């Protein structure tokens, strides 16, 4: 078992052979058609999909497009559909797939840049502008001399829990409601609304939030299919959060 000494070159490695079935399509290239290409790679200890993709690009096909920045599950760039599950490539070990066949698809529901790379940034920005996802303080005049109101540690912790979202787009891709209804805000939108709703520094009332998400593109359009809850790579409590907002928004009717 001297797997420690495996080198980067596939010939010298002792691991099993992995077959990567990768979606390929470059919308920028005229005449290009969507297809699946197969790449073979020797598995090395601790190999993630992210490491494998980099090796494929380095050694086999420099034209392969995919996104990554941090390789540690923090930047949210490398989300893709891995064997039918949308998740982060950098946090998915190849050893998880006993068959050795790994199919990679770009996240559905986003503008395709090429191959496995999608434009989540554009979607997130539009969402933030549409839902006004920033703090709306109680008072508009800013007095730099006034002392900031303290926040209870419990509330700070609750906010921090929701702040862990890395905007990877998995919840949007995993949501069949979103795929059927393009204008649906998805779990990420509701998570961020819930974050400001919980924030004591935010001056918006339940009534104000109703105007933003109290519709069928928002919380009342959610059909509780739970793709968001089951796939979020950061394990955010989407189900509870959306239910909380639903109760909160429904309560404004009474």
């Amino acid at each position: 078992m001297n797997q420690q000494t495996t080198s980067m070159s596939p010939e010298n490695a002792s691991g099993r052979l992995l077959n990567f079935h990768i979606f390929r399509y470059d919308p920028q290239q005229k005449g290009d058609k969507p297809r699946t290409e197969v790449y073979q790679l020797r598995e090395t200890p601790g190999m993630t999909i992210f490491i494998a993709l980099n090796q494929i690009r380095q050694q086999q096909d420099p034209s392969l497009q995919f996104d990554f920045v941090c390789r540690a599950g923090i930047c949210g760039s490398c989300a893709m559909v891995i064997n039918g599950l949308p998740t982060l490539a950098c946090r998915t070990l190849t050893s998880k797939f006993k068959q050795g066949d790994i199919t990679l698809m770009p996240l559905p529901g986003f503008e395709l840049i090429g191959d496995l790379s999608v434009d989540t940034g554009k979607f997130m920005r539009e969402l933030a502008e549409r839902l006004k996802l920033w703090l709306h303080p109680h008072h508009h005049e800013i007095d730099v001399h006034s002392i900031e109101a303290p926040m209870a540690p419990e509330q700070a912790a609750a906010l921090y829990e929701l702040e862990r979202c890395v905007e990877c787009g998995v919840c949007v891709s995993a949501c069949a409601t979103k795929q059927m209804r393009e204008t649906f805000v998805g779990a990420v939108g509701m998570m961020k609304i819930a974050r400001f709703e919980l924030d004591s520094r935010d001056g918006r009332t339940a009534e104000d939030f109703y105007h933003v998400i109290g519709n069928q593109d928002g919380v009342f359009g959610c059909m509780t299919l739970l793709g968001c809850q089951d796939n979020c790579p950061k394990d955010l409590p989407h189900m509870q959060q959306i239910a909380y907002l639903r109760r909160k928004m429904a309560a404004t009717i009474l």
Partner: protein
Amino acid sequence: MNRKTHRVKWSGLLDLTQSISGILLAIFLWVHLCLVASILLGAEAMQWVAKTMELSFLSADGHGYPWVVTVMAVLIGVLILLHVLVALHKLPLTLKQQRALNKQMHVIPHEDTKLWRWQAITGVIVLLAAPVHLWLVGAAPETIGPYGSADRIWNQGGWLLYVPLLLAVELHAAVGIYRVVLKWGLAGDDMTRIQLRKAKSIASAIFILVGLASLVAFMPHAS
């Protein structure tokens, strides 16, 4: 004055209506099945249940008022209509939406989404079959009983309607209640969700078995 009409919160009202009408229909369904299952205890038991449901204890001659059943059928029909009108907002009705759903299920075959698709399919089956059932019993409430019902089910081919209706409605109702609980956050963490899912499957299985057994139990009474 104008402000008031403008402020009706339709989206919220519709979502609430869907959940509440669904819960009421599910409760009715399960109680209804328990009452029908009285045939498993014999003809007299079912006869007694049928008469009691016609409020025989309020009439002097003990025959009751069969029209009470017709009124119930109409009320349930209205409740179903309400539930359908609201739930329709959620169904993929256009070709574009159906294609999007199919593609999604192909790329990301997620379990609870599959469950929802079954809920939608069974919902359409119930939508088609339930009005026929309501019409059959609502138009002839006096025939409900061990012999009249047996005749309807086994001599007039009623089972062709009742078997698919039973299967569809028992799946639809259990999945629906499961979803309502999660939707409004009435259950806690993921562990409860797994238990809830199990409970809903067991509920479907038991009610389908009881329903099928009841249909079979009517057979000897069909002359």
